[in-house]
């Protein structure tokens, strides 16, 4: 059983469309992170959110941490082919240094 569930698992959209990826859990996390992984490479950190309700923007990407710190979302505006990749959320609990990874969302943006 995964501690963090992501949806959708797969997403294929046209360039210019908007999309939202969700990361949900029944557990509370002290912080949550989003990574993007391109084929054949390791995941790369995009953002860390710490405070319940926090919203962070990274160009066309908007990240939100749920008020109860159990869930998060990633919204991409006007998707581009360069956004293609596997998006992973990862949460860390109040104790320990270990991140728990979500199941991942594979995004394909078609030119």
């Amino acid at each position, binding site marked *: 059983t995964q501690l963090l569930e992501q949806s959708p698992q797969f997403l294929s959209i046209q360039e210019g469309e908007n999309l939202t990826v969700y990361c949900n859990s029944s557990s509370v996390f002290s912080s949550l992170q989003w990574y993007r992984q391109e084929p*054949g*490479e*390791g995941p790369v*950190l995009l953002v*860390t959110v710490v405070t319940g309700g926090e919203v962070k923007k990274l160009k066309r990407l908007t990240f939100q941490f749920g008020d109860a710190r159990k869930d998060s979302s990633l919204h991409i505006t006007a998707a581009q082919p360069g956004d293609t990749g596997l998006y992973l959320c990862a949460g860390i609990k109040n104790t320990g240094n270990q*991140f728990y990874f979500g*199941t991942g969302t594979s995004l394909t943006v078609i030119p």
Partner: protein
Amino acid sequence: DVKVTQSSRYLVKRTGEKVFLECVQDMDHENMFWYRQDPGLGLRLIYFSYDVKMKEKGDIPEGYSVSREKKERFSLILESASTNQTSMYLCASSFGQGYYGYTFGSGTRLTVV
């Protein structure tokens, strides 16, 4: 440019062989991790280490062992490789409580035949 380096991008080994996967980080991070990544299963933690000569089991340690003799190096050992250990192996490191996230290596795609 700080980084985590995994010794091999691709490996092909025979069933029963002893396999060593090496990982080196140049960021003076205390914490190092080994994950395997499989389609539909996500990243699963094999072993991790918070300090030199220290190791802790993750979620799927069976069939694996690790070694951390120096702070910058964390080795994953497959004692007797089996076909179900064919996977992408990712090494990562982090600083302190992990707020700054993991830095991952590029991965080693291991095929056991």
